[in-house]
């Protein structure tokens, strides 16, 4: 009964997938209709020898670790704080969730506006307080910090929401027993709460990691990969290769490496998740 749907799903998934693999072994021309010229391993050789690609992967790694790490820590703390509230938690949750409902492009535009050195509120505040008097989006280092914080601002609530759902499953009786035994909050957190939600934390980590690998809109809007390529993560580089230079064969090869990286990260997290389930 499900076979027509499965067939359709396979068709719309597998045909583009194999096309892209084939494309990565060709020089692709758009003029006069799509034309492929077999180029062997040329595109793949470029992927592994191009210093720009290497540099973009390194920047991506920094970006990936910073955003996912901060989101996990802050999101978990936020969830624990909300969970500890006895009143008004619904309103607080609603307010906390607002950023994740804003489109990333809008977050980028907002960031660009707020950080503009001539009229940006945040730029002015940082300048007045003496914390930073340079051009935030126009300086190497600060631009990276800015785009990381924009992503963290937008997606930390998602982590908080997931963790909050997990906290509901923490056994109340165990917590009460620990309290009766005189356990402090830190001990309860370390030995009861966190082990109870470790699976849900891994799920949150997996979701955010998958998103972070293909992060694009905010950087595209705010810095376009600059200054000095300091925010040119791999999806921005891929966009340039594919849709500005129309070097589609090479773009296909770069895209496939991103896919492989995503699969590796997902596999690692899934294995970790399974190990957790087995041990618990």
């Amino acid at each position, binding site marked *: 009964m499900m076979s027509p749907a499965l067939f359709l799903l396979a068709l719309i998934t597998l045909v583009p997938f194999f096309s892209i693999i084939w494309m990565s072994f060709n020089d692709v021309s758009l*003029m006069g209709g*799509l034309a492929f010229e077999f180029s062997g391993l040329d595109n793949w050789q470029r992927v592994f020898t191009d210093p720009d690609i290497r540099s973009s992967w390194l920047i991506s790694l920094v970006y990936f670790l910073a955003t996912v790490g901060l989101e996990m820590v802050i999101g978990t703390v936020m969830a624990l704080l909300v969970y500890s509230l006895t009143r008004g938690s619904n309103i607080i949750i609603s307010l906390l969730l607002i950023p994740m409902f804003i489109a990333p492009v809008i977050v980028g535009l907002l960031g660009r506006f707020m950080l*503009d050195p*001539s009229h940006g509120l945040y730029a002015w505040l940082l300048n007045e307080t003496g914390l930073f008097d340079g051009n935030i989006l*126009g300086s190497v280092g600060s631009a990276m910090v800015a785009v990381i914080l924009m992503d963290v601002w937008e997606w930390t609530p998602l982590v908080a929401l997931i963790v909050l759902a997990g906290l509901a499953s923490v056994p109340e009786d165990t917590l009460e027993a620990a309290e009766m035994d005189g356990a402090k909050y830190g001990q309860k957190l370390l030995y009861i709460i966190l082990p109870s939600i470790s699976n849900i934390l891994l799920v949150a980590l997996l979701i955010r990691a998958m998103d972070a690998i293909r992060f694009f809109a905010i950087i595209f809007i705010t810095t376009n990969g600059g200054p*000095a390529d300091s925010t040119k993560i791999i999806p921005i580089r891929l966009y340039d290769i594919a849709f*500005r230079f*129309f070097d589609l064969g090479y773009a296909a090869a770069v895209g496939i490496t991103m896919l492989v990286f995503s699969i590796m990260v997902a596999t690692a997290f899934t294995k970790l998740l399974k190990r957790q389930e087995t041990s618990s």
Partner: protein
Amino acid sequence: MTQFKRRDILKGMGGLAGLSLMGAGPLRTALAQGMASDEAWKQASGTTIQFISENTPPTTAIAANLASFQELTGITVNITEMQLGALVQKVALDFGAGRSAFDVIYADPYQVLAPYHRGLVDLNTFINDDQQPVVPKGIEDFIPTQLAAAGRFKDRESLYTLPYDCPTMIWIYRRDLFEKYHDQMQQDLGFDPTPSDSTTWEQYYQIAEWFSNGNASEVQYGTGHQAQQYDSLMCDFSNVLFAYGGDYFANGQQVGLLGTDSPGACQLTSEPAMEAARFYQKLLKVAHPGSTSWDWTGVANAFQNGEFAMMPEWHEFAGSLESSQLQGKIGYAPLPKGPARSANLWGGTGIGINANASAEKQKAAWLFLVWATSPQTQLMGLKSEVGGGTPTRQSVYAMPEVKAASTPPTDMPNMLTADTMLTAWQDEHIGLRPKIAQWNEVDTVIFTELSKMLAGQMSPEETMQSAKQRIDRIVGA
């Protein structure tokens, strides 16, 4: 099928009174007077064509006045406006698919015309066709450098587009401040600071430094630049590069005017180019620090906010600046000169016809091209309340009402730059970037390496060396 002969067209040109009586309105009358018979304009009646354009002021004005074209021809035009980057993607994919989702294409000379000129119709097909309306005042009426730069590729035979818009970089400055502090600046700097033909980039730097030193309470800095790691940075730098006698490739003006498939080795390591890079780095050190995060819109907004006293900027921003609180306080001049010349980067574009479109749609598209680039439509654009660009035709600048609008007060603010523009478009003053198929990639190398220089990661010499190496690899030199 109706056959139109040259005689019919001549009859049409003389048929002003008859057309007026048909009630098509003054625009239709004026167009018909200069072009052809009414039948020629109606030959594609009932056709619908798609026009894809960058979201520019001329297209905004055209969109607001499409009714007159539809009334004249019976053709429906659907306009899709978007940013240039997105437009290039759609057009490239349209060509790749061998389709004509868009019949009339806003063909940027560098990103569309150079790589995809084979996908555009040679307009001589229509120009030499007796059955088609003639281009009013002939194609000779277009500003010659713009006709070649926007419309041709490699030779002067084929013509792929008609010049449609013509943004060009000029020197925009706070005239009120230059007048107020004129004597003080002259005394401190030792030269007349008023922007003129003889002002040099070195003097521009000194003026910028003078303002940045806190000599004028109205502004914090002397100059602002569009130096974000983006196309705008290449544009900003190119003015200085050309002024210093440098260029991206040998025979640069020719490569810019007509374009080529094989530009040869990159020339950025020449001494004039190195000197230009050294100067540009020095200039940006006294510029508003926000410059490295601004594109052309960002720098215009900051200028409007009173952050600095002057900037190199696209002249079409005059329209929005003159409707801000700076109205009447702004001056315009060609960009300063370097050791070689004053160079004003041109960023114009033409409109062409998709060769994949059906014959019927191509005819309709040609009628639209003739109408959209006609002197009357360009005049209409100038008067439009929703904006409108700057004419690409010489005859429009000669019109008495346009001439009168070049001095304030005016209802055509873009015309306040007219005198400056007519100078900037002269062969010896216009700055043309290379028209090559690989331009997007070369452009990216240029602005990325320059961005590294401005971030202090590379010296000007290293920057030019690195850019040359990468560009040579891209163009296969």
